[in-house]
């Protein structure tokens, strides 16, 4: 039983990592008032590129680098549509997302069902040998540590720095931000690129470390879960991190409980993460103040600076 609990608590960090990275990226994008729904497509494209490159060259750093590049390239298409041509954000995001999924199938075509070895986890000396805590916290992959660090830094950036406040002002009211002399379009562009970088990292992590292999459809809705997590965490990075971890634990809990031979209808366990999402979203939505305080007012609205 103890093994199972440790397995879930430790494994949840790994399962949560791609969700967390993508959700933090999307949260920052949404904080500037832009809704980028191509997360799933960016993750899939990055995952395919990361696997293909790492499989061919054996160089995982190069794989991650090109994966992020691929994801950012997709987001630039989105940026041109939304920022330069003021196209509808929802439609543009969906379209670019579908493009990303298509590109992932194309890139991954020759790599279908291939697998490779996952790189070893980081086990810092002393810390990883601590009883219990060491097993749960300190035998994770470098990207997992990075993901939680990014969540913390993003919180710090948004809440504590001047640039963070400017970012939020852009999302609240781009016209005022513009009148105050801030470059709204440029800030939104940076945010979109940051979001794409995070989605790219999340996708690359999924295909090279979490499940070191490629099959078409590998991301399997994780990008959409990330988008939902942003609302789940009411646009606050630390809550999003908590939500991602919870989701990761629930995804694993189902499998771990079954492996103990414990008799819970598996359909219930499998649906639990999604039921939880609905419950939390409903609870969050009931609290109008919480949404009003945290949701960017201009979310989804384009801005064209007047000359």
């Amino acid at each position, binding site marked *: 039983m103890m093994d199972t609990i440790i397995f879930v608590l430790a494994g949840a960090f790994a399962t949560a990592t791609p969700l967390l990275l993508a959700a933090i990226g999307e949260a920052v994008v949404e904080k500037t008032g832009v809704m980028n729904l191509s997360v799933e497509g960016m993750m899939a494209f990055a995952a395919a590129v990361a696997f293909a490159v790492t499989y061919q060259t054996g160089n995982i750093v190069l794989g991650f680098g090109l994966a992020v590049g691929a994801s950012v390239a997709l987001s630039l298409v989105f940026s041109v549509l939304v920022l330069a041509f003021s196209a509808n954000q929802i439609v543009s995001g969906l379209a670019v997302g579908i493009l990303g999924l298509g590109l992932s199938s194309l890139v991954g*075509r020759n790599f279908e069902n291939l697998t490779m070895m996952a790189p070893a986890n980081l086990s810092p000396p002393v810390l990883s040998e601590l009883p219990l805590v060491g097993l749960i916290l300190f035998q994770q992959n470098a990207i997992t540590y990075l993901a939680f660090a990014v969540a913390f830094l993003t919180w710090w950036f948004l809440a504590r720095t001047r640039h963070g406040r400017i970012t939020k002002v852009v999302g609240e009211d781009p016209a005022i931000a513009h009148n105050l002399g801030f470059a709204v379009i440029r800030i939104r562009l940076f945010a979109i690129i940051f979001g794409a970088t995070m989605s790219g990292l999340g996708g690359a992590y999924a295909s090279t470390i*979490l499940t070191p292999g490629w*099959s078409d459809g590998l991301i399997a809705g994780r990008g959409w879960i990330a988008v939902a997590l942003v609302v789940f965490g009411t646009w606050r990075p630390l809550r999003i991190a908590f939500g991602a971890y919870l989701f990761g634990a629930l995804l694993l809990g189902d499998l771990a409980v079954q492996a103990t031979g414990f008799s819970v209808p598996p359909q219930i366990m499998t649906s639990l993460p999604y039921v939880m999402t609905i419950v939390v979203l409903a609870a969050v939505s009931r609290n109008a103040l919480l949404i009003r305080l945290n949701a960017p007012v201009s979310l989804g609205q384009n801005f064209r600076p007047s000359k």
Partner: protein
Amino acid sequence: MFQIIRAPLLGAVLSMSWSGALFAQEPLDVAIVAPNAIGDVGWDHEVVRGKEVLEERFGEKINVTVIDSVGEGPNATRVMNRLVANGTDVLILGSFGHMSDGLALAKRSPELKVLHIGGYQNLPNFATFTTRHYQASYLCGMAAGYATKNQQLGVVAAFPLPEVLGILNAYVLGAQSVNPDLKPVKVVWLNAWYDPPRDRSSAESLISQGADVIYSLFPGTPSAVATAEEKGVYAVTTLSDNSAHAPTKHLCAGQANFGVVYADVVQSVIDGTFEGKDIFAGVAEGAMEVAGLSKDLTEEQRAAILAKQDAMRDGSFDPFTGPVMNNNGSEAIASGKTLNSSEIKSMDFLVEGIDSRLQN
């Protein structure tokens, strides 16, 4: 009036030219439709690999077209209609989900012959085909029973459907037949055909609980197999030899050979003896065999496994011969009784020694 007279005439002329084409030894057009992208192992790989057998056996006499990534739905309907419009004579459908489209098409085109893998409905020109995968899984179960040190087997399985239950039960019976000390077998149901991250997590979860042989029962990807290799435990696989994904830890695979059945069906079309029957083919027909046996098994152990395979081939042994107990304590197969094909295809129990309960 004029048209009413003309229509049958036109039909007669058309049918004459049609039979003329047949006499001219036009090659038979065979099309294989696979539901997903083609990998180097697994379901779609096997569905498409049957092409090689066909080409080897019939050579110039047939043309084989392969179309992959055609999941069920409007796209499948479109692709199938197109194939038939282009003159396909034999259509091989590789997904359960192609059933309703295929049936509709077969009704509309009586000249067309369809072979559907994994379904359960037939028409005079619509045959179905399922492998007796449970036979190979019994043999792999023996390998697992020999290889386990912890006496703990773990299974990552797709859905608790009759076919999957049959394969799982045979696997456990095979393991028990050579190893009386086995602990109850642990099973994780993915409740999905395809979810690589969960394949992997399931395998890790089973390994964390002491399982040292992981059976990857129909997950769509080799993730569980690669995980076993990484963690240093044995992997047993379905459908394809997965040795490439677990070079040192591949214990055994149930290898499917769909091509043997394709060839029989195509031959029957050429001979004009095609029937819309339900084909259930296994070791005896060459449609299933054990493959990729680990070097870690001793000579005697391999010999015992292959001897059992021979016994299945000549019909002297059947995995589902009683007495077999259900894992809720009742009798599943009475002593001396052997399950028939339809009982195997509607299996709804788990045998004693499996640590999992079926819901409903």
